[in-house]
């Protein structure tokens, strides 16, 4: 933080990460255009972690966790926040060094800070996925999740991908020395129109917190969940050959429905209408969808299983 190299705004942290990972040869994707709970749900991660074809991508993914809403009042809890995600397949031998390079790029010098890799195995019951890795600590704060994917959608990853996830707000707050997320400069504080994170997001945090906790119509959400589930199953079961005789499995459209079901489940959970016992059943239903999509994706050219 004492470094002269330090970024001055939230967006500068993001831009530096983008530049850094672009320089390492990653495809810089844009966020996926659907509501997801974490960057891992982006098909560029979940689906592309499957199959034999090499892959390298980095992107910002807006993530929604309805239960984390605090009406914009909590200094570091938000129902909508940004994750930065890097996925490289197969995992390169120097991934830890590449990662440390990204910390230097945003002004965290490991010679001044205490950077540690602390055991934290990752598991996503909804995606039928797990991996081994660490949470990365910087001066006692978790700044990233670092995972070697072992299984996705119930399939062994061959080869294994390395996945990095940065919680952007928390990381940037630390780099910028800000105590409350809403006070964080979004653009450069010397800009003609300087805007804080709060200027951009305080209103939406309030509105969504209210809607998530009190207003979202649970009957509608239940119905949408069933619809998404049914549509996903229908797509997965559709004939692989279209009317013109072309073989086109539709793994991605089906996966969109699985993502949708997953987010609807999160919303229902935030409304407190899913009991502990039902919870497991819902998670199992989403996992079944994700698994079906993974199975189908593995048959596509993008997976390159036959190559």
């Amino acid at each position, binding site marked *: *933080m*004492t470094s002269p190299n330090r970024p001055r705004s939230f967006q500068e942290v993001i831009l530096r990460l983008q530049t850094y990972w672009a320089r390492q040869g990653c495809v810089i994707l844009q966020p996926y255009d659907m509501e997801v709970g974490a960057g891992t749900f982006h098909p560029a991660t979940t689906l592309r972690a499957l199959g*034999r074809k090499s892959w390298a991508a980095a992107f910002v993914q807006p993530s929604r966790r309805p239960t984390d809403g605090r009406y914009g009042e909590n*200094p*570091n809890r938000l129902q909508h926040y940004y994750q930065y995600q890097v996925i490289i397949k*197969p*995992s*390169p*031998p120097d991934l*830890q060094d590449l990662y440390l390079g990204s910390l230097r790029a945003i002004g965290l010098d*490991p*010679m*001044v*800070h*205490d*950077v*540690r*890799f*602390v*055991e934290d*195995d990752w598991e996503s019951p909804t995606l039928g996925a797990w*991996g*081994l*890795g*660490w949470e990365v600590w*910087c*001066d*006692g*704060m978790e700044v990233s999740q670092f995972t*070697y994917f*072992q299984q996705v959608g119930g399939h062994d*990853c*061959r*080869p*294994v991908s*390395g996945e990095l996830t940065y919680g952007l707000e928390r990381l940037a707050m*630390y780099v910028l020395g800000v105590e409350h997320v809403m006070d964080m400069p979004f653009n450069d504080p010397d800009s003609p129109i300087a805007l804080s994170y709060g200027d951009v997001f305080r209103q939406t945090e309030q509105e969504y917190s209210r809607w998530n906790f009190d207003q979202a119509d649970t009957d509608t959400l239940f119905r949408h969940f069933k619809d998404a589930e049914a549509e996903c199953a229908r797509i997965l079961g559709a004939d692989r050959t279209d009317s013109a005789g072309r073989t086109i499995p539709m793994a991605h459209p089906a996966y969109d429905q699985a993502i949708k079901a997953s987010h609807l489940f999160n919303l229902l959970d935030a409304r407190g209408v899913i*009991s*502990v*016992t039902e919870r497991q059943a819902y998670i199992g239903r989403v996992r079944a969808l994700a698994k079906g999509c993974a199975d189908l994706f593995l048959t596509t050219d993008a997976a390159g299983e036959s190559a």
Partner: protein
Amino acid sequence: MPDLLIELFSEEIPARMQARAREDLKRLMTEGLVQSGLTYASAGAFSTPRRLTLTVEGLTAHSPTTREERKGPRLDAPEKALEGFLRATGLTRDRLEARDDRKGQVWFATIEKPGRPAADIVAEVLDGVIRDFPWPKSMRWGTQSKTTGSLRWVRPLHAILCILTDEAGAEIVPLTVDGITAGNTTRGHRFMAPDAFTVTGFEDYASKLRRARVMLDPAEREAQIRSQAENLAFARGWQIVPDDALLTEVAGLVEWPVPLMGVIEERFLDLPPEVLQTSMKEHQKFFSARNPKTGRIEGFVTVANIDTADDGATILAGNQRVLAARLSDAAFFWENDLREAKAGMKAWAEGLKSVTFHNKLGSQADRIARIAALAREIAPLVGADPDQAERAARIAKLDLRSAMVGEFPELQGIMGRYYALEAGEPEAVADTARDHYSPLGPSDAVPTAPVSVAVALADKIDTLTGFWVIDEKPTGSKDPFALRRAALGVIRLLLEGKISLDLQSRFKSGLTNVFSDRASASELLYLDYYERDDDGQLLTVESWKEFIRSPSYEEVSEGRYDPHDRIILNPSECKQIISDHHIAWVEDVDTVEGYVVSEDKIIRLDDISWNLLSFLHDRLKVHLRDQGIRHDIIDAVLAQEGNDDLLQVVARATALNAMLATEDGRNLTQGLKRASNILAQAEEKDGVEYSFGADVKFADTDAERALFAALDTAEPAIGQAIATEDFPAAMSAIAGLRGPIDAFFEAVQVNSDNQILRRNRLNLLSRIRDAGRQIADFTRIEG
């Protein structure tokens, strides 16, 4: 005599796995080397987050040459036989030796298997050890993970150092595992000394690592952290709260430990010390520092992995910041919880109705109600006020719903005590919240306050009976609901609290509670009145139902009663029926035209209760064996009436144990066993039981009369002693029979030809047997 040095250099190994990995590396390597014929003087294993290291000193340079002599055909045997022998031994004729044998001259072959150099053996053994290393969890990585057989390691393995060093210098052991070729280089600290360097042996390795800011020995890192943390605390007049588990973990997270001390902000100092300590430990792996003057936790020590130019100022500031955020959360929980506690915790009690304890055993609220009922019942037996015990049971688990326990489950009970006090509950009730979980382990203290004891017992008995009903007993090493711990908890509470409790009745109460909870739940299937008709046939489902509750006139006339419907009973109806009729339970019953066809699905309350008691007996045996009481003595006592009162069981076993340590006791046992054996044989032969009617007037000898007299004295004395549970007195009373019994068997032939005398003597023996049986089943005593 070369020395061997191995280092397996990887990405960060989880701290909790390092100790075991060190031991495994040492054990597997040395076992492998020895099996291949090498010997060694000593071995040591070390670890840091990034490396596992093994040093083996005084290894033999070669495995020994082995020599085998084989006898072949005679010199005058046909050529074919000799050719066959040469093929089998792989030798040429000129290497054979002719020796004299009994029948003339015979060819002898000496086959020499040359020893192998240590390097070959090390390479072979290490290759196997790396490929099959017993990590609790391992992974694949990188390009090679495309293939199915790729190497697995705890995290990506980057390098192998493997050298043999002798006077001539160091030699790299040629070895390649899944593309990683062994060498003689390693690297230092990830940030402070990342460059590779060459090493020539263990001494050189350890000292170069130290220069490269890596402290190899975990014990040294622990010692360093401990002493520096204590020094930092001492400088402020504080003390570090000892925590060995945390110390080991932290030492496994750093290669170069640098303890830094920080101060907790004033605004957090009013949080309970347990909260501060738990939050700091769980979230940040900080040690807590206590100010002995105030008794509060006021500081912390964090352990960094690096020396920085600013002496850790940036690192400490960052940690302090994270701590403030964490403690703000904790303070927020604490304040909200206190508000709820002040309001009487009703919302928590309500909330526990929707928290599932186990899907077959209802909600936490159901469970609490059961525990409260049991606690009330047990209270008078342990000297507690029933109202207070029930109240305490209802309060004790409410903190499960608090925000603080939601965040830190390990604070359950501790927070419960604070909140109960805030709610205005008396100390005895509040203490119960904290103490009723105990004892949690063999070293955990047992609660002694009567209310806590009543609730602690009720809690454990409810857990045991509940899981017994749904047949989730521990099997082998699997005990997911910690039922062995619960059973040992019951045993220790009773024994250490000197509490006499008839466990069977308590189990039946517990089972009845669980049954009626389940019966009134919506998944109720059938209640079964366990009775057979005259033909031994089970009653039909319909008739049980009618027995349980006859339909009303309206139900029948309006067609609302269908005998095939389930009848849902309310809890009090269930409870009544269960306790009146020793009700049993039928689940998923298979019926054909109304008749039960699979009897094995019927569970009787008594069966469960007995089964549970025998589980406790097994735990008791283990417990007593640890205290030096032989298993046959325990078995002899457990075969007695009243074996569900564990305090009595132990008192008997202890007294019996003491008696059997004397010669009198051992001889008496022989006499009692002899009496039992003779009786058993006679009873089997005659098909009758000799159990009364021995008359002194048919006594034929002085020895017989003396035994009559001795029994006349001993019997009431034993009876009296047993009645007052004075087992040592009972033992000395029965020990008095030793002489007369010995003399009797010396002088008297029991199986006399005179049937009157024989019967009388057998009946006399049965008095001896009965006297023994009052104390224990002596036939189970070995030797």
